[in-house]
């Protein structure tokens, strides 16, 4: 498919991330995450079409099943079980978040990062979007207080890295595919165990109450 469509897809990813920053509800966050992973599977599928390498198909199928379907379902019943609907709170006020996001994208697009984004000259724009998406998801993890939204932040970070890698011309390498599949599984398991454990211990998923982690 042509660059234009890919750019549109990445724009969608960018928007989902912005939306993630702004939403107050966990459920909407999970929905945004599933859209994002859907975009990624489409991009993967697109690269499969180009290279018709069988493993890529396997990856696409797996990510489709897990990331787009199972993860959100899992998150939603988590929300239902522990009534976490409204517990999304952030450190910075929304205008400040927007300012930071813009700074991050500005940095990603700045020519300082030219050597990084122009690994493959023709999809230089895509790479810079991917880079900005990486930075924004990182910022999302920092910004959120709720453990669930942090987990989503991490997963979206993982998606954005995946996007960046694909367009950095590495989609053929077996290492990438295995790596992707592997970390998907791991992350999902850890996330769920982690959340239930926190919940059992603290009774709430609000990060600030975990002060006694310190010493």
């Amino acid at each position, binding site marked *: 498919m042509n660059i234009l469509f890919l750019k549109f897809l990445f724009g969608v990813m960018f928007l989902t991330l912005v939306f993630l920053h702004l939403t107050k509800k966990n459920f909407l966050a999970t929905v945004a995450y599933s859209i994002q992973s859907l975009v990624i599977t489409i991009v993967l599928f697109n690269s499969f079409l180009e290279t018709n390498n069988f493993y890529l198909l396997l990856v696409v199928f797996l990510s489709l099943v897990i990331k787009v379907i199972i993860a959100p379902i899992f998150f939603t019943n988590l929300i239902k079980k522990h009534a976490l609907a409204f517990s999304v709170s952030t*450190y910075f006020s929304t205008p400040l978040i927007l300012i930071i996001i813009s700074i991050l994208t500005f*940095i990603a697009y700045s020519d*300082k*990062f*030219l*050597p*990084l984004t122009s690994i493959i000259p023709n999809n230089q724009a895509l790479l810079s979007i991917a880079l900005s998406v990486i*930075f924004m998801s*990182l*910022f999302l*993890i*920092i*910004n*959120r*207080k709720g453990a669930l939204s*942090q987990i989503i932040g991490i997963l979206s970070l993982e998606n954005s890295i995946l996007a960046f890698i694909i367009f950095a011309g590495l989609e053929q390498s077996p290492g990438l595919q295995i790596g992707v599949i592997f970390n998907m599984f791991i992350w999902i398991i850890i996330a769920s165990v982690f959340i239930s454990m926190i919940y059992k211990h603290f009774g709430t998923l609000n*990060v*600030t109450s*975990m*002060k*006694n*982690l*310190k*010493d």
Partner: protein
Amino acid sequence: MLEIITPSVSFFVLLSIFFIGAISSLIYQKNDSIANFLSSFFSIIGSLCGLFFSVSMIIYGKNLSFIINYPYSSFFKISFHIDLLSAFFIFIISLISLFCSIYGVGYLKHFYKKYSIGVFGFFYNLLIGSLLLVVTASNGIFFLIAWEIMSISSYFLVVYDRYDTDNIKAGFLYLIMTYVGTVFIILSFLFIYKYIGSFEFIDIKSGISLIPLSIKNNIFIFTIIGFGTKAGIIPFHIWLPAAHPAAPSHVSALMSGVMIKTGVYMMIRLFVDILQPIPVWWGILILIIGSISSLLGVLYALTEHDIKRLLAFHSIENIGIILLGLGSALIFYSLNMPELALLGLMASLFHTLNHAIFKSLLFLSAGSVINEMHTRNIEEYGGIIKYMPQTAMFFLIGSMAISALPPFNGFFSEWLTYQALFQGVAQLNLSFQGIFIIAASSLAFTGGLALTCFVKAFGIIFLARPRSTKVSSIKESPLSMRIGMGFLALMSILFGLFSGYTSRLLEKIGKDLSIFKDTNYFTSASFYQGIDIKNSFASVSAPIIFVVLIIIIFAVIFIFTFVINKNQKIKIENTWGCGLNLNKRAEITATGFARSIILVFKGILKPSIQNEVEYHDADSRYLPKSRVITIHVKNIYNYYFYQPLRNIINIISLKTKNIQSGNINAYISYIFISLIIALLSVL
């Protein structure tokens, strides 16, 4: 027959014996006596093979180097290079570990129920094995690995008697200081690697000209600090008096007799062999360190009244003397007088061998006394010569050897060091002469003070009346301990008598080093086993002194007991104390003995004298029941150097502590910021 021993396979057999011993004693951990038997059996056999191996190497003068190339990495190769210098050190290691293991068979019996002997055997054999590796490794990384194994196994041996809390503290201090030293060693190897690109000692030696002089000076400073901490020179010595007493006696004998010599070995290997065209000031610095360590070591030993700490301080003093020889050798070589340099190196090697022998003899005999008395404070000893006559005899031989009294081996190595320093004073111009005079005077004063210290040690421990009731209940140490000590005493006499022959061998070892290839001998052998300095500046011959003294002693005893007044009756009475009834309070104590010396050197030692008086009834302070005077010498190193260092580190670490805010978001933001900075800096 010796030919077949020298190929490399025999070296691996030697190493494998120790490792088998280590593992087997670990397997049979449950049953103490089997573990003890296994570990000492293997260590004895191993050290015997070590002895044969090194003696054959020295006699046949063959160098041996073989590399096991490890496929993956370019710079890590398990490579050995055994030239005569390392063969000499293998000889020392195996000689001392042989007698320490024999001693250990008897000594470990009193650990049976308390701790597991298998673990001890494991670390003991591991230590000896790693010592052998350290002196033969010729690849930087492989050397560091062996160095680490040695440090760790000796750490576990130090904290072996773990029910006593200050052993743990001593072990902890020992661990920190060794790792500080190792950091500096790694730094110097990295510096070398940066310029030469390989860790092989041979490549370093060949490519030495690549390293600019300023870097070479840094390397020198780092190696001095690194190996100095292991050897225990003055500013870095604080772990030695803490760690050695904590270890079981035959381990502390092995440690202070042999392990601190690995620091000296590497100093010789680096300064004399590898980094060879060296500036003069290196030798001068080593000479000054040597004289300071020897003088201060013996002064602190005088203030001690814990027998093992006293011996540990004496190790520092003798390391100082070894460094005197080494420093003079380096100075002579850089002023291109190779013969005198060979003399200086010979003196330091001979003293390394002698110190290993008599220091381990002293530690073993002190250990067997402590084994009976269960305390290390010599104020409670006294009159032990009547209960443990042979141990007293061995301690006497050891203390006569260490204070360099003629018929024993200590004298001849100190005599050689003196000759090296005298040559320095005689032949060099004014500025170097000044330094050599300082060195010679520190050696002279050290000799005198060492004599005083060992009169105090021997007199307080063994002579006069018992100072505590425990003394009457002790008995002679078991047979295996006495065999170990007996052979060491015999060694110290033999190396004294055959000092002429040993100095010939040491010269051969010295000439094997590349820099001394063509130098002719400065000392020659006179026909009755003596050592003659060139143009008959000086000569000494051990057997003649020994024979003269023996003949005259027997003549005098014969004349004065049998010829004059044969039937003289000897009446046994109690000591004449001007009519006072002499109890144990009338005897001199270690503190009393050393008080006059401490007050003479109070500038350096800064003694603080407290006396606690206990009265019959507290309010009317006229009738003191007992008065205890303790002289405490301030440890100026802790007070002025290590304490402030510790405070600074604490302050810094407290400041950095509040980074750890306990909030995950904060941590991720740190990651994020550092990522950004890294990316910006890289692109």
